[in-house]
């Protein structure tokens, strides 16, 4: 058992190195780090400028600015996670023609995919910190590292991590059906953007869509992040629910996502083997 876990770990670590090499190979490490930092910061600043222009930075709208910045900061995790899994699997098939060999390896394909995407997830985690820092220093949000409710934040983020990975792996397997799917991971991530409560509360969505969004773990996760970091100074999507109730909803939605993801992954995997998608010639 111990040996098996060690082997899985070393295989995972090798996949992490691979992911880093592939995602950072287009430039020198220092430029890659600058790019990784500037990207989320510029996204947050664009939203902040839009907010300022629209609201005139009125004091009454400050909770919404906090809502926006925290949502955007944590959103990069979903953006990078979802798109990197899909990009990795499609790039390995269409560009490097090596997916079948990774798929056949005893490591286990989901572990390979997680390793392959880990460097991007780590870069997303760093960008969370950077965006919050920008929010504090440039936009004067009242964020203090000493007042963050870390147990709540870590617990919520762990559950969200599991959900996002389950969703991303399943989506990647489903996308194997297409021959020309470059960028679809990013499109899916943007699609989720609208239903996650990252930039506006899900209650503003039309009824059935708001109901669907409420089944996803993402709004509960972002709500808990805002509560843990901002202590009531951010606009709340679920003001009538306590932290514990939101957390319970996050647990239930994560369990549902995991179950659905597992079933869909098994189906997509079997379909890929039935129809020969793993080594299908695909455009890149």
């Amino acid at each position: 058992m111990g040996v098996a876990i060690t082997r899985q770990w070393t295989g995972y670590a090798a996949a992490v190195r691979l992911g880093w090499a592939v995602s950072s190979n287009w430039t020198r490490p220092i430029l890659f780090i600058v790019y990784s930092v500037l990207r989320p910061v510029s996204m947050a600043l664009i939203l902040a400028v839009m907010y300022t222009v629209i609201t005139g930075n009125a004091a009454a709208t400050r909770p919404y600015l906090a809502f926006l910045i925290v949502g955007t900061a944590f959103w990069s995790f979903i953006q990078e996670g979802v798109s990197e899994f899909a990009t990795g699997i499609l790039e390995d098939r269409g560009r490097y023609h090596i997916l079948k060999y990774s798929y056949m390896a005893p490591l286990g394909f989901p572990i390979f995919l997680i390793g392959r995407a880990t460097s991007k997830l780590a870069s997303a985690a760093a960008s969370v910190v950077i965006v919050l820092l920008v929010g504090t220093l440039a936009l004067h949000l009242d964020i203090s590292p000493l007042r963050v409710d870390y147990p709540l934040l870590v617990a919520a983020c762990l559950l969200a991590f599991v959900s996002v990975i389950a969703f991303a792996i399943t989506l990647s397997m489903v996308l194997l059906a297409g021959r020309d799917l470059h960028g679809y991971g990013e499109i899916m991530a943007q699609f989720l953007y609208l239903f996650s409560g990252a930039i506006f509360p899900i209650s503003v969505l039309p009824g059935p869509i708001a109901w669907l969004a409420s089944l996803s773990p993402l709004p509960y996760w972002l709500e808990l992040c805002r509560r843990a970091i901002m202590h009531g100074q951010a606009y709340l999507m679920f003001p009538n629910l306590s932290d514990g109730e939101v957390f319970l909803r996050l647990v239930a939605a994560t369990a549902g996502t995991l179950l659905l993801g597992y079933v869909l992954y098994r189906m997509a995997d079997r379909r890929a083997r039935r129809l020969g998608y793993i080594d299908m010639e695909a455009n890149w």
Partner: protein
Amino acid sequence: MARTHHPSSDTSRLAVETRRLTRVYKTRRELTTALQDVDLEVGEGELFGVLGPNGAGKTTLIKILVTLLLPTSGQAFVDGLDVVTDYKRLRSRIGMVSGGEQAGYGILKVREQLWMFSQFYGMDSTAARKRIDELLERLGLSDAANKQITGLSSGMRQKMNLVRGLMTDPRVLFLDEPTVALDVSAARDVRSEVRRWMREDPTRTVILTTHYMQEADELCDRVAIVNRGRIVAEGTPRALKQSVDDDVIVDLQLDPGTPVLDRLRAIEGVGAASVREEDGVDRFSLMLADDGVLPRVMTTVEGAGRHVSGLVRRQPTLEDAFVKLVGRSMTEEEA
């Protein structure tokens, strides 16, 4: 159908077994049967060749056996494990190398990529590095070990992929056209390494698909000839060649002119005929029932206005057995 087992292999323990294995590809317009009721038994320790023209079903068979593709019906077992239900356990026991493809992360160095795959297979890191260096040395790739994969020639890349397949010491190694598009020297190195790898452990099994009859003849303990998804013959290369021993094999070289292949095939006593163009001349290979058929062949050729520039009678080869069984040469398109 001839079926003989190689005496050195342990056929009591099967490395590969298929039972009525069938694979049908569905498209919107049609159904294509790539494999039809294939029954195959390969003993542990055998180097088994699968021969067939393009589209015969060879690669489909390999894909099913390495768990990349599901069969439509029938069963397949590799190292005693069902490829459909036991595929997770099976994957640590098998390896695959496909020829003619540019597989590899171009940005990685040769040694890096190989080490990475060794880790996906759970190898000890130090042992893996030692094994990789040993195999790179044996295949003449030591100098390229620290080169980026994008900088490799296709021959070097193919050898690197062979190292990837060999280094994990699979129980059964599947080689799908491993020497296709390689120059003579690189192909020789690959064949030589495969032989050496099998000698290291007599229980290792190799399933090889190839277009090259000489390669199959030289390497394989037994071969199966696949045509239109079915196994049409199976046996040792020697036994298959003996199946055309009673025939007279003639190579006929004609200067360019009117096509005559169909006319030659129509002559009574011509068992099989194939042609390939080489250096501006047509080289026909004819299988005649006896010497008495030759005058009729010459009359037909002259009647078509073709000039004979060479005529040789020779010993039968595996290619001749293939042509007799399949009705065309490996490279000839199906009519």
